[in-house]
C-alpha cells in the first residue's frame, strides 16, 4: 500500500499541490489523471521522494517514507520515468541490471543471481532477445518495456509510472499497460488517456489545479459530470462490451449539441 495524505508542494511561490491525497491498496492499480499542470507528476515525485512535501505525509505500507533510507525506499518502490535520451550508450542488459543496484553495496559488482533476475525480467516483458542492443537504438515501445523490466528486476512491491504510454502507438499503449496490470504489485500510474485509465486501472484520482477533484473507482470518476468541468471539454460515455469508454468533443460543440432541439 502506498498513500499520500494531505500533501502540499510549491515550486517557489507557485503552489502545485494543496491538501492532496491518494491511496493505492495492496495489489491495486491507481490511475493519476488530470489536465496538464494539474500536479500529476509532482504527486508521483512526492510518492517516490524525488520531492519532499511541504506539508502532509507519504506512507509506504503504513511507514512514513521520510523514515526510509533511499536504498530501502528503492527496494520497495520501483519507478518508471522516461528521461531525455542520453548520448552515453548503455546496453539493455546493463540497464536492467541497474535495477539490482538497491540490493547491492555500491562497490560490489552484479552477482550471478542479479543476472538471473535481470534475464527473467527481460523474458517477462518479452524483450530478452534485445539484451545486447543499445537502449538508445530501440523503438519507443521496446524502450518502455526495458524500463519496466528494470523495475521488475528491482523486485519492489510498488511500481510508480509517469506516463508510460507517451509516444507509443496504440498497440504498444495497450501492451505496456496490460503488462503493468498483470504484475503482482501495487501501482500508481500517471495517465493522459482516460480510456486507458478506464480499462487498466482499478481506481482513479483526478487532479485539478493541484487539488483532488474526484477520487474513487474508475467507473465513478470517469463520468461526464465529473470530467467536463475539470477538462473544459464535452464528454460522452459509451458502453463498450461492459467497459465505459469516453468520447470527447470541444466544449462549444458539446454546448451546441445540448442546445439543439431533440426533434432535429
Amino acid at each position, binding site marked *: 500500500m502506498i498513500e499520500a495524505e494531505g500533501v502540499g508542494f510549491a515550486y517557489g511561490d507557485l503552489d502545485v499541490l494543496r491538501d492532496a491525497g491518494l491511496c493505492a491498496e495492496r495489489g491495486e492499480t491507481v490511475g493519476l489523471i488530470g489536465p496538464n499542470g494539474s500536479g500529476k507528476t509532482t504527486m508521483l515525485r512526492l510518492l*517516490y521522494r*524525488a520531492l519532499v512535501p511541504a506539508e502532509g505525509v507519504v506512507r509506504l505500507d503504513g511507514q512514513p517514507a521520510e523514515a526510509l*533510507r*533511499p*536504498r*530501502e*525506499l*528503492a*527496494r520497495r518502490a*520501483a*519507478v518508471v*520515468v522516461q*528521461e*531525455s535520451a*542520453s*548520448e*552515453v*550508450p*548503455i*546496453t539493455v*542488459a*546493463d*540497464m536492467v*541490471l*541497474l*535495477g539490482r*543496484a*538497491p540490493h*547491492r553495496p*555500491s*562497490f560490489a*559488482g*552484479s552477482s*550471478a543471481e542479479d*543476472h*538471473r533476475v*535481470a*534475464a*527473467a525480467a*527481460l*523474458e517477462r516483458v518479452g524483450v*530478452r532477445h534485445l*539484451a545486447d542492443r*543499445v537502449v*538508445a*537504438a530501440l523503438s519507443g515501445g521496446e524502450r518502455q518495456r526495458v524500463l519496466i523490466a528494470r523495475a521488475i528486476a*528491482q523486485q519492489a512491491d510498488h511500481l510508480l509510472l509517469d506516463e508510460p504510454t507517451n509516444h507509443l502507438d496504440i498497440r504498444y499503449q495497450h501492451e505496456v499497460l496490460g503488462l503493468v496490470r498483470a504484475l503482482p504489485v501495487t501501482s500508481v500510474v500517471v495517465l493522459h488517456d482516460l480510456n486507458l485509465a478506464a480499462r487498466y486501472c482499478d481506481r482513479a484520482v483526478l487532479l485539478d489545479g493541484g487539488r483532488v477533484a474526484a477520487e474513487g473507482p474508475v467507473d465513478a470518476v470517469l463520468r461526464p459530470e465529473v470530467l467536463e468541468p475539470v477538462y473544459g471539454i464535452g464528454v460522452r460515455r459509451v458502453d463498450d462490451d461492459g467497459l465505459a469508454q469516453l468520447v470527447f468533443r470541444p466544449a462549444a460543440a458539446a454546448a451546441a449539441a445540448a442546445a439543439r432541439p431533440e426533434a432535429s
Partner: protein
Amino acid sequence: MQTSSPAPAPTSAGTEPPDAPAPPAPAAGAVDDLDRARARRRSRIWVASLSAALLATLVGGVAIGPVTIAPEDVVRIVGHHLLGAPETVTWSEAHESIVWRLRVPRVLLGAAVGAGLAICGVALQAMVRNVLADPYLLGVTSGASTGAAAAILFGVGAAAFGEEALAGSAFVGALGASALVFLLARVTGRITSVRLLMSGVAVGYALYAATSFLIFASPNPEGARSVLFWLLGTLSLARWSVILAIVLVVVALTLAVLLVHSRALDALAIGDETALTLGMAPGRVRARLLVALALCIGAVVAAAGGIGFVGLVMPHLARRFVGGAHRRVLPVAALMGAVFLVWADVFARTVVQPQELPIGILTSLVGAPFLLLLVRRLHAATD
C-alpha cells in the same frame, strides 16, 4: 524455457571427428543469466591483453629514442634499480643514464597521464551525459595554463614551489579554475550538466584572456614560445620527482574511486531521476566525483600540459570494445590511454629529431579523424 534456443540440428553422426568440441548449446533447463560468463570472459581478455600491451609499451617506450637501447638492456637496468638483480653492470654508463634518469620516468609519466585523462574523460562524459565532454571541460586546463604562463613569464611560484614552480603554479591555477567552475555551477542550487558546461566554458574563456594578456605583457619573447609549447602538452619535463609520484598516486586513487562508483556512473549517465529512483543521491555523488576528477586532471595537466583528445577518444574506444558499463569501461580505457600516450610520446621525440614535437600536436592529429570516424559509426548505430 523460451530463452534456451532450440538445440542445433544434430549433424549426421560420423562426419565429425569424435573429439570435435561440443557446440556450446545451453543445457536444457539451464537458468538464463544473460550469459554472464561470456561477458566477464570478454572483459578479462581485454584487460589481460591490454596489460600485456602496456608492459611491452613501457619497455619499448624506454628502448626507442634518438639512442636505441636493446630491450633486454632496458629490462636489466630497470631490474638492477628496482630489484637489485642483475647485480653486475654489463651496460654503459650513458645507457644507464638515458634509461633510468630520462626515459623511465618519462614513460611512467606518459602512462599515468594517458590513463588519467582517459578515466576522467569516461567519468565526465557519464556525468554530463554527453559524449563530447572531455577532461578540460572543468576549466582545469585554462586555469593551469594561466598558472604556467605566470610561472614561465614572470617567475610566479618560485618562492613557494622552488624547482617545481611551473608544475606547482599550474596545479594551483587548475584547482582555482575548477573551484570557480563549481561555485558558478551551483550558484542557483544543484550542480547540473548544463550549468557545469556553461560555467566551464565561461571560466575557460576568462582565463584564456588572462593567459593571453600575460603573454602580451611579458617582456620576454622566448617566453611566449615556452608557454605555447607547454600548452600543447609535453612529457619532456619528466624526471624522478615528487610530481611524478603525485601523478602516479593520484591517477591510481582516482581509478579506484571511480570503480567504486561505477554503478553510480552508469545511473548518472542515464539521468539524475533514474539514479534517484535507484536509491542513490545523484547530486552528492556528482559533487564528490567532480572534486576527485578536478584533483586528478589538475595533477595531470600540471605535470604534462594540455594534451588533447586522449580524454575524449579513449572512452569511445573502450565502450566499443566492452560495452557501456563503467565497471568494464574504466580499466580498459585506463590501459588504452596509457598505451596510446606512451607511443604518441615515442613518436613526438623521434619524428623530427633532434627537435621534439609537442605531444599534443600528435594526439590531436591522430584523434581528430578518429573522432570523426566514431561519430559516423555512432550515427549508424542510433539511426
